[in-house]
């Protein structure tokens, strides 16, 4: 009995799966509409930008770094898009430049982190302020809308059957992430660097270059999410996507990725994304709205690390008592 329980607790993914099932059962008992496919697609769609960025953040945190600037990059890219559109630049070109601005922002982070050697927490805290400032410079205090119809449709309507473009993009990225992270040499290198950057360097891994690639990619993906955000809302403001980093980091850490790097899997992150989405949906079903949801997510973040620690502690005590007998 205890042995089985132990095995369960040992696997964080197992625990997440159990938690997800509890939430799903609870939600479906609250509302018959919950299990409908339309609701599930809607569920994803409401947080599509965050979950896309969470995929990139998984790489960064496994690599023992952090990127606090993602929400600001999302805002900046959306700002670039809207500003260029207002200035009369052809829309496809505006999208390309918006995405490029994200990659450049990410490379900017990467430069200070890998070549100057400043901790990523400090760099991305500064660029969190800076990139948000960039978005404010472009947008001032106005709200820009009036994007082309096809662009708005991309964010607001379904593309293939009932599935919207954002969800297709997300699923595509999931496949890429699984392949790169779990099955490629590059992915293994990310884990090695996360475990010990010194060991990685001594074994000939190009640590700086990999960190640079990761942060550039993180910026690019954040810009992609920012553009998607503009399409879904049909309007951009200077404070678009403000504060999204908390939710994004929570999703990754809840998925069992260690903040100290080197461990965690993409499957855990996918499960935790499902948990956060369904939990939010469930809270809306019982009329817990707005800010209270943010608080619950914060609580969840702490519990996701505290509970395994407590479980470990209890297990050790149990072992010791048995040993004493």
């Amino acid at each position, binding site marked *: 009995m205890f042995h089985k329980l132990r095995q369960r607790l040992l696997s964080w993914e197992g625990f997440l799966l159990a938690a997800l099932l509890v939430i799903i059962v609870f939600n479906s008992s609250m509302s018959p509409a919950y299990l409908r496919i339309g609701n599930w697609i809607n569920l994803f769609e409401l947080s599509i930008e965050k979950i896309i960025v969470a995929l990139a953040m998984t790489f960064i945190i496994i690599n023992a770094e*952090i990127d606090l600037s993602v929400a600001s990059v999302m805002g900046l890219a959306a700002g670039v898009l809207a500003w260029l559109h207002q200035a009369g630049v052809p829309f496809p070109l505006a999208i390309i430049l918006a995405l490029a601005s994200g990659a450049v922002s990410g490379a900017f982070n990467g430069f*200070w982190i890998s070549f*100057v*050697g*400043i*901790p990523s*927490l*400090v*760099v991305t*805290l*500064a*660029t*969190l*302020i*800076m*990139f*948000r*400032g*960039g978005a*404010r*410079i472009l947008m*001032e205090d106005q709200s820009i809308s009036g994007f082309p119809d096809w662009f708005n449709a991309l964010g607001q309507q379904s593309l293939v059957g009932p599935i919207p473009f954002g969800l297709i993009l997300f699923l595509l990225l999931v496949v890429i992430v699984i392949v790169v992270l779990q099955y490629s040499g590059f992915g293994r290198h990310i884990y090695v660097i996360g475990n010990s950057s010194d060991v990685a360097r001594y074994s000939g891994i190009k640590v700086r270059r990999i960190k640079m690639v990761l942060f550039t990619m993180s910026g690019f993906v954040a810009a992609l999410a920012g553009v998607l955000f503009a399409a879904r809302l049909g309007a951009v403001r*200077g404070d678009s996507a403000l504060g999204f980093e*908390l939710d994004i*980091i*929570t999703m990754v*850490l809840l998925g069992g990725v260690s*903040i*100290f790097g080197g461990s965690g899997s993409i499957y855990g992150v996918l499960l935790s994304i499902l948990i956060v989405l369904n939990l939010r949906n469930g809270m809306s079903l019982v009329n817990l709205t707005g*800010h*209270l949801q*943010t*608080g*619950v*997510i*914060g*609580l969840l*973040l*702490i519990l996701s*690390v*505290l509970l395994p*620690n*407590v479980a470990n502690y209890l297990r050790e005590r149990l072992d010791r008592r048995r040993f004493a007998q």
Partner: protein
Amino acid sequence: MNNLKKSIRPGQLREFVLVFLILLMMFLFSTQIENYFSPRFFNRISTSVAIIAVVAIGQTLVVLTRNIDLSVGSIVGFSAYFVGQQLVQDNGLSPATVVLMAVALGALMGGINGLLVSFGGVPSIIVTLGTLAIYRTILVEISNAETVLTANLPEWLLDLPRSNIFSIGDLDFRLMVGVALLAVVVFALILRYTSYGRRLYAIGSNPEAAKNAGFPSRTIVFTAFILSGALAGLAGFMFLARFGNITVVAGLGIELESVAAVVVGGINTNGGTGTIPGALLGAILINILEQSLIRWLSISEFWRDFLLGFLILLAVAADSVIMSRIRNLWAQNGAHSKLGRTGTEGKDTHVS
């Protein structure tokens, strides 16, 4: 000359550099902004520095132990709002009760952080990112979207930000600035001369060794978080006194400002190095920068955040590059003259 070189440690040199940077910046702005050195400007900056400096002291204690406290913004907002609401309900509360209430409330919230970090084994960035959201949520829930209004607060509180200890001409030395300076001196002395202070450094520079040496590491980290919370609570009271009108978003972003002040002030986020005067200088630098950028008419207000973020980054980068060189040089010199060793030891000290 050689003696001078030995007696100045790299840490102190850094503080000189900061003072120089602040003076240089003020000089540059004074050529751009008309009537830059007005008494009003001095008074405004000194008051806003006072609040950030108090928070930055607590942040320093936590960062020294290789942790971080991102929840201070919510603690400042929470205690400002909560204490303000108590005062609105009962205008007769004595100043001492009110300050004590704010500090105790902050200490309680800091204590929860500390408990989770040192006894729950949860990394501080996770705990305080979580409580940043949680404390703010509780505030939003208990407030019912009401605002604390200046009109409902007692006279003495409204007079507080304008009350002076002394003034030279139009330059006022405000009571709140005095409180902040007192806190700076007290904590600087604690860090420098008490075993508690030295242990904060020891834990930050090598947690394993500190544990092996028998330090009660957990308790010390726990108390660092309590102090950080208590100081944030005090800052919350100062915030209430300064602004009067308190909404549920009060203090939003102060955690970023305090971390920025600490980092610019030379406190290493890997723990173990940095001083309280450094944090104060960092707070002064950032505040002067912020306020000067607001006054600089040739740029729009929207440029402020962008420049602020970039300059913080530059300050840290300059520090990281220049100081590691200097530290190396210093360590090599010291090692040659004292022990006759090669400089390899010195190189290890700055590997992060």
